């Protein structure tokens, strides 16, 4: 399954009510480091079935960015059972992204 594009319309259903953990990547087009991390996040979305992967474009979804107190991107948040379980700011290698979810 590939990464889901998250909006304020589907966030509740796809993330907060999800039965499996969800890795959410908050990013923007103008952010260089975000564009380094995006392909890694999408790749993980293709490969893993034990958790979901979603992305939030902070320019298109400022309310979501505000709601989760995003003040630096790229920002990865792992949600588990409707709650924030882990958070990481900046570019990290693929293994570290997977660890973030599996150790959440």
């Amino acid at each position, binding site marked *: 399954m590939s990464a889901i594009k998250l909006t304020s319309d589907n966030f509740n259903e796809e993330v907060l009510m999800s039965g499996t953990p969800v890795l959410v990547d908050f990013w923007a087009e103008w952010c260089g*480091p975000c564009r380094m991390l995006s392909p890694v996040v999408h790749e993980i979305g293709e490969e893993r079935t034990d958790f979901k992967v979603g992305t939030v474009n902070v320019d298109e979804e400022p309310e979501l960015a505000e709601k989760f107190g995003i*003040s630096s*991107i790229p920002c990865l948040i792992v949600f588990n059972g409707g709650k924030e379980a882990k958070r990481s700011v900046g*570019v990290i*290698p693929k293994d570290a992204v997977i660890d973030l979810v599996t150790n959440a």
Partner: protein
Amino acid sequence: MTDIIIIGAGPAGLTSAIYAQRAGMSVLLLEARAYGGQIINTPEIDNYPAMPHVSGFEFATKLYEQARSFGAEVKFEAAVSIEENNDIKLVKTSKNNVYEAKAVIIATGAKNRPMGLDREEELIGKGISYCATCDGMFYRKKDVAVFGGGNTAIEDALFLSQYCNKVYVIHRRDKFRGDAADVEKLKARENVEFVLNSTVTALIAEDKLSAVEVTDKISGEKKQIPVSGLFVAIGQMPDNGAFANAVELDENGYITANESCRTKTKGIFVAGDCRTKEVRQLTTAAADGAVAALAAAACRR
């Protein structure tokens, strides 16, 4: 065994990968985080010859693809030590792998200098930032502070003053080292306040930053300034601690080498911001990459 191991996939490391491979050498690149180095944080590069207005991300990606196109192997592992056995260099990584090569080029670059304050690391992304152009938009209409007095600090403050309600510029001295024209521009901004001869001494935060404690270096007086964001721009530092036993470091931790990019240790070369030098720019990083690669190739032929 690889001919040359290059530690760091920023502009210096990637350029050395291109030159080494074109000189017939096989190359293994080790990168601790992501390719590109510091330049990926730059929205627009305006001082690289013949490539005006290119974004840092675009530049890094093109360079990475170019280096890969000659067949370079890349592993995303941090190098933790360099040892030697019978003229063979052994590079150990964070994943406990040991890679062998005939020569090593260290191109680990530099990173933002932290303030060294309590909770600084924990508050990154929760009020502390080292990149105004990356994170500035999240502080729209809020009060923020910039700590530093060099070019980066002045540019950051100018950038932030366009979006933020108020920008405090906290600087240890009463004069600025930054570009004089930019300093004048900044002084003219109505929402900018200078806090001079002062240094940030504590971070006040519950789950995110709410204020900074500033100490006046002359009077010793402490005061709190309420801000939602603190942009730290107090310079760069190298990240060469892992190689202290393999090469000579200067008093600031940079690897000692002259324009030939040779270190004092046979078979170990150095390129880019991580070496002792006057000018740390994209062009000089690329130049070092070429020089180090050709020196390494010549020594191993």
